[in-house]
């Protein structure tokens, strides 16, 4: 490993540890507005630990999902939020909650995740079908189809919000903006952590196969990479990771786009480093944004973390789109 790559790994590792520690220590007095850095009182310790862990799990899950989508679709603009996967998952969760509300049932975390997975995969399959050009998902057409599907899914979420009683609507709205939970559902949190661990290890061990997806289909087939099988596994894993992250925290935009690009800048495009690097970058982004929002109050309370990730990710997406339109994928 070159010195530059080694520095990149160290930087991301250090960044991830730093934001996790910061999330545990940072606090803001709601009355005086004073910001303090101190080990939390026992009453708050559990909440902050859970928030840090949830932020790390969903940041890592969204980042890995974006990395797998970008490799499998050979599209540097692919990300769960831009392909409608996150919004589809959100609509799935909303639909489960609405059905549970109407039928008077309790929606378990398993049902949340199942609803999110069905929504995520439904949206992804629809976008891939709409974005197809000469048998292959065209980079820009796929993103356009993803934006349309995401908008439709968001409209569906707003529609469902209007159909539930006032009390439940507030919870729907907070979740739909993207919030790192301080009291996450244990089943959801640990299933996200477990899935991230398994998918991360499998992707790391199969990094060369992911590299092979960057080659032409003929080359990938004849070197024995079995691209169709790898691509199917990647899309399934990306759908599951996004589903878990969305069920846990709502549809957080742009993390799955920005984190892989951050890692790529520091570590190059080889997946042996890119996979763990993206996960670390996702942790830096989400936990860092969550720590930042603890000290930001513009008069209406703390900002939802989804607003911060969108403010960071939106301009980054525009820069990447401009580069992709110029056909400079190789430089990314």
């Amino acid at each position, binding site marked *: 490993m070159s010195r530059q790559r080694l520095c990149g790994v160290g930087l991301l590792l250090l960044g991830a540890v730093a934001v996790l520690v910061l999330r545990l220590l940072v606090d803001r007095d709601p009355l005086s507005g004073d910001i303090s850095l101190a080990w939390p009182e026992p009453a708050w310790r559990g909440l902050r630990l859970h928030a840090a862990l949830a932020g790390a799990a969903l940041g890592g899950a969204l980042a890995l999902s974006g990395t797998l989508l970008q490799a499998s679709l050979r599209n540097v603009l692919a990300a769960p939020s831009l392909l409608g996967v996150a919004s589809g998952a959100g609509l799935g969760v909303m639909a489960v909650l609405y059905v549970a509300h109407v039928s008077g049932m309790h929606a378990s975390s398993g049902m949340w995740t199942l609803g999110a997975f069905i929504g995520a995969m439904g949206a992804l399959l629809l976008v891939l079908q709409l974005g197809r050009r000469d048998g292959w998902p065209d980079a820009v057409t796929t993103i356009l189809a993803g934006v349309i599907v995401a908008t439709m899914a968001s409209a569906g979420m707003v529609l469902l919000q209007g159909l539930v009683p006032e009390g439940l609507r507030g919870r729907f709205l907070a979740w739909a903006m993207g919030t790192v939970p301080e009291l996450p559902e244990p089943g959801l949190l640990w299933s996200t952590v477990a899935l991230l661990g398994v998918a991360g290890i499998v992707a790391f061990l199969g990094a060369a196969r992911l*590299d092979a997806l960057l*080659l032409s289909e*003929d080359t990938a*087939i*004849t*070197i024995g990479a079995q691209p169709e099988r790898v691509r199917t596994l990647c899309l399934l894993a990306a759908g599951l990771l996004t589903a878990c992250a969305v069920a846990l925290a709502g549809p957080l935009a742009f993390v799955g786009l920005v984190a892989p690009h951050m890692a790529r800048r520091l570590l190059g495009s080889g997946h042996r480093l890119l996979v763990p690097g993206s996960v670390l970058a996702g942790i830096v982004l989400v936990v860092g944004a969550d720590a930042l929002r603890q000290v930001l109050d513009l008069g209406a309370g703390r900002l939802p973390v989804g607003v911060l990730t969108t403010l960071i990710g939106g301009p980054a997406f525009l820069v990447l789109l401009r580069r992709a339109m110029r056909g400079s994928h*190789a430089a990314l």
Partner: protein
Amino acid sequence: MLHCDQLTLRLGAFTLGPVCAEAQRGAITALVGPNASGKTTLLRALCGVLHGHGTVCADGQVVADCTAKERAGMLAFVPQRVQGDVPLTVEALVSLGRLRRPNASERIQAAMAALGLEALRARPVGQLSVGQRQRVHIARALAQIEPDGILVLDEPTAPLDPDWAHRVWVVLHGVAEAGGTVLSSVHDLAAARAVADDAWLLRDGLLVGSGSATSMLEPAGLESLFGTAFVALGDNALPMPAWMDGADVS
């Protein structure tokens, strides 16, 4: 040895075959034919990228019955249009030739050396010229196979300058001399005549001739294949389109 028997394939309105042919071990076989005659389709079918009817055997094994790993160990393919915007380094891409093979860094280094890529090893492939990228993919294919393996190439020298085209033919000749099988589509008929041992002539998806390069690549046969007159040039009787002999394109 690469052998196909009654190979038939339908691709949209185009039908390939039935084709029965054999590329010999220890020889370079040139696949020659006009545009849209099915050369690329035939090469892709022989490598197992496209699936048709009939049998394709590589060194005695039916390609369709092989696992992806077994097939990658037997034959390597260099497609006509190599992926240009690959964000991997030269060395990483050449190493992908060993994806399903035991790691053999000496084969990777030797392949890069043969194609003059040592100085470019850390460069992203996307930043290279078209000719350099082609050399990277030929090196990847060389690293993939054993010295006596099967190498299938689709117009490998088309983007190369005359010097590198010559060097690539020297490398391919070395593979054949080591007992390997080389099958390559070629549009440069003089080069095909100069370097190939055997030739297959393809027209409208059908094999219209196969045999030694000297007997196949002569003016009369080529005229009937391409529909344009050819002349023999020099002591080696290299075929050249007649219009180039004192060409006037005004």
